[in-house]
């Protein structure tokens, strides 16, 4: 079965500092990968998704970027963090993509606090 590794679990960063969150997956090949964010009091918002190496789609304009240098590695970055970037960041993959029983499988998340 697939496993998603996310680190760090918590992160406190000053405004204007850079960010790099890493996600690696095991137990699957050629996965569709996703970055979701849960801001305080809000639902899960899709930020980026990737169907393969170096193939990134952005869902919302923002201060963040994503990269996929390897098949099982997905990285979320920022050059300069804003207060509004605070939130709980989740990496996810989809099981059975393209089928009616497709499901998102989430990692354990990173709680980012920008101060």
């Amino acid at each position, binding site marked *: 079965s697939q496993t*998603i590794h*996310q680190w760090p*679990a*918590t992160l406190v960063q000053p405004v204007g500092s850079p960010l790099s969150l890493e996600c690696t997956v095991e137990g699957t090949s050629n996965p*569709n990968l*996703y970055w*979701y964010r849960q801001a305080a*009091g*809000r*639902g*899960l*918002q*899709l930020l980026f*998704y990737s*169907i393969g190496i170096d193939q990134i789609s952005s*869902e919302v304009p923002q201060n963040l970027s994503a990269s996929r240098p390897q098949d099982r590695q997905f990285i979320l970055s920022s050059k300069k963090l804003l207060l509004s970037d605070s939130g709980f960041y*989740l990496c*996810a*993959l*989809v099981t059975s*993509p*393209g*089928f*009616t*029983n*497709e*499901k*998102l*499988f*989430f*990692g*354990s*998340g990173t*709680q980012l606090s920008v101060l």
Partner: protein
Amino acid sequence: DQQVKQNSPSLSVQEGRISILNCDYTNSMFDYFLWYKKYPAEGPTFLISISSIKDKNEDGRFTVFLNKSAKHLSLHIVPSQPGDSAVYFCAAGAGGTSYGKLTFGQGTILTVHP
């Protein structure tokens, strides 16, 4: 525009009673719905799903009901247990074409009291 809405931010229920969590959607293209459960500082875990060709799906203590004409779904937990205390998210997609790009509601915090 919030296409999936959970209008109740929180729900408090006594152990052993029924918990009913509600979700409304506006996009008629949605035909596949899921419920996720999330504990603090953890990623959401899949609970149960339903396709629009059904109006009910059951899995143990969890039942999801779908009313397509009202664009409304609900999750019933019977009987509720203290371990069910968590945030519950409903999500929607176009089955077979969303490719993981689900639309989530804001979540409902369920508290089950012993």
